């Protein structure tokens, strides 16, 4: 993809910032999940230790990822499953489409899965004439609306129930004409639609929250029960799992199944935790395929600071507390991974050059780091990625690299000024003299160049008539 295909974050954010309905929906939803999360987390006196344990486990997994994956593959195979390895999204989609095509069906049911969103599996299946039905309520809403998810956990967070009612009336053939926006009625309509799909589908597709290496068990965590339907009713089950989702042992779930639901849905325990190991005669799918997906993950692993982004268990707590996400929503991040985690994961997984503005889509307020159940230091990774961005000059309008970056020149000039007291003090004096035309009634109200973005909505105090150091020299001559 060329850089021009990705609008920069500040530009993409403008649409959302101007959409008052969206702002209201997002503020309402994020604040309510945020408060509920804080309440259930406060119930656990050992929450901080749990976070430490979660991070520690993930750190160790990454250090021996190769061993864990090979052990996992052997165990899945021994339990009657088939393991496929996919270097990238395209390979993954091809593998899945081939398996579906071999069944001779043109319809599959899906559990909500970010990983298959990442590989754009649905679109790839559609190109092979296969219709993939999303069965998670919010994901179904997104699919019916031909929209993009805007949240990791609640992909339709940007829609309210009236908008959903209108959508169901327009797009679901069996929706009654008098459908109201009562959540219970909306769910009934969706259930009736999904029930038919569950009973008819021959192939189910899921992602995976965890893969347990010692037994080859796959774990999916969900709230609605649609996931359990998809993983048990069809004859063939295909699970797509990022390679970073492997954990060594069942015992590790003790930590993650405590961290995940409280962080994501603010529940003490999520309603459905499905675990399956290979295939089992007369019970559940008779064929099980596991696709292990790299798609940039090994590159993330190679980044010493960025590696921690792979610890993510997709809880979305960082989105819900993020003051930027709360106002821009997920679409501005131009990725299936929005919010703070997206701002680091997207450029790490793909090409930083295509997402130069994402590491800057944060005020570094640190709220994300504070809630992250596996203690990913998101601000640290953001700053690290900013450093990588600046070490490579931005492309010019025609996509050519190597242009001299005016920001870099300015930053270097400022650094030179700060490097010498004399230069710094003369810069203070020069600014004081030069600011005259911009000062009105004791305030700077309009500045040229990039600083105009500040004065577009904010005044700026002028350079003081007497700097602190000049005052000090005049009042403490013995220590000047």
């Amino acid at each position, binding site marked *: 993809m060329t850089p021009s295909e990705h609008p920069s974050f500040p530009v993409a954010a403008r649409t959302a910032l101007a959409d008052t309905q969206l702002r209201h929906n997002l503020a309402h939803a994020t604040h309510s999940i945020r408060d509920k999360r804080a309440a259930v987390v406060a119930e656990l006196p050992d929450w901080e230790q749990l976070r430490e344990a979660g991070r520690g486990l993930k750190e160790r997994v990454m250090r021996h990822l190769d061993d864990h994956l090979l052990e996992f593959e052997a165990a899945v195979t021994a339990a009657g499953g088939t393991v496929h390895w996919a270097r990238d999204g395209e390979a993954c989609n091809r593998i899945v489409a081939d398996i579906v095509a071999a069944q001779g069906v043109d319809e599959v049911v899906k559990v909500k899965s970010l990983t298959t969103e990442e590989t754009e599996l649905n679109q790839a299946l559609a190109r092979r004439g296969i219709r993939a039905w999303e069965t998670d309520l919010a994901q179904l809403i997104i699919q019916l609306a031909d929209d993009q998810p805007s949240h990791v956990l609640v992909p339709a967070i940007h829609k309210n129930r009236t908008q959903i009612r209108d959508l169901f009336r327009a797009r679901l053939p069996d929706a009654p004409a008098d459908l109201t926006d009562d959540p219970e009625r909306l769910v009934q309509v969706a259930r009736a639609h999904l029930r038919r799909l569950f009973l008819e589908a021959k192939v189910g597709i899921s992602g995976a929250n965890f893969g347990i290496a010692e037994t080859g068990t796959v774990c999916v965590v969900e709230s609605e029960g649609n996931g359990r339907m998809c993983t048990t009713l069809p004859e063939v089950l295909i699970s797509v799992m990022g390679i970073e989702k492997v954990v060594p042992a069942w015992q590790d779930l003790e930590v993650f199944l405590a961290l995940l639901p409280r962080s994501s849905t603010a529940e003490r325990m999520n309603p459905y935790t499905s675990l399956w190991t290979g295939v089992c005669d007369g019970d559940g799918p008779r064929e099980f395929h596991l696709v292990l997906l790299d798609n940039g993950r090994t590159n993330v692993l190679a980044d010493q600071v960025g590696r921690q982004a792979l610890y993510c268990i997709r809880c979305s707590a960082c989105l819900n507390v993020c003051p930027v996400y709360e106002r821009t929503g997920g679409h501005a991040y131009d990725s299936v991974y929005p919010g703070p985690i997206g701002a680091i994961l997207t450029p790490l997984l793909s090409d930083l050059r295509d997402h130069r503005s994402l590491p*800057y889509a*944060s005020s570094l*307020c640190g709220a994300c780091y504070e809630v992250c159940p596996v203690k990913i230091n998101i601000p640290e990774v953001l700053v690290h990625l900013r*450093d990588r961005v600046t070490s490579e000059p931005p492309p010019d309008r025609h996509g050519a690299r190597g242009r001299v970056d005016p920001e870099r020149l300015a930053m270097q000039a400022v*650094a030179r000024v700060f490097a010498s007291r004399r230069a710094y003090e003369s810069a203070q004096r020069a600014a004081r003299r030069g600011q005259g035309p911009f000062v009105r009634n004791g305030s700077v109200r309009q500045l040229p160049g990039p600083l105009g973005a500040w004065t577009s909505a904010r005044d700026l105090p002028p350079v003081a008539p007497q700097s602190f150091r000049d005052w000090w020299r005049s009042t403490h001559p013995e220590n000047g």
Partner: protein
Amino acid sequence: MRDASHRRRHVIREIVRVIVPTRASLFITCLNDTLFPQTGRAVVTLLERLGLAVDFPREQTCCGQMHFNTGYAQEAIGLVRRFVEAFADAELIVSPSASCVAMVRDAYPQLARRSGDPALVAAVDRLLPRVLELTELLIDTLGVQDVGAHFPHRVAYHPTCHSLRALRLGERPLTLLRAVGGIDLVPLPGAEQCCGFGGTFAVKNADTSVAMLSDKMRAVLDTGAEVIAAADNSCLMQIGGGLQRQRAGVRAMHVAEILASD
């Protein structure tokens, strides 16, 4: 009786003299030096009133926070070196900026390591325990809560992100403000939310920054406060700049300025 109390006072004063630091070097920060000198004057007034001898190492300039946070670590390393040299002789370094102290505390060790210079790593190690944010110095080191200030105004306090989540100042600034005579300290709804400043974020993502600011301003105005206070002038530049643009009639003041009022 009078004799006993006199002797007690003498002994206590002697103890205080030997256990409490008597000197502090002020790290003013480039922003305060240039745009908010009144904050620096307030810190000096306050600390001298509490009996501390304040000095001002003149070679200081900037801690490098803007460079580091914007992705110019190499440039920031030069400023780390400069800071360490400027404050080499300081017994105790105090600064009225939560974000600049957080920069020193959190980023200096990694920048020093990155420089590959073991001498710089060691110098930063020696420096860190001596760098304190103003309210840390007052509450933890000097053990004062009531600094004898008088400020008969309605004040809302905004705990900046670095005060709250990097330095974990917690109740310190509020404890000091509560003890101020005549003050009407009112709670700020959604106080823990970022004001949208974020250094160059305020310019690079101006629209989002202003959206965050407008919610913060609404919260401030809802309290009916005359003054919005914080322990960092960078965030106050954002909040105060927005309020000033709207002619909202609310003043932004650094906590130090309130504590120095009488």
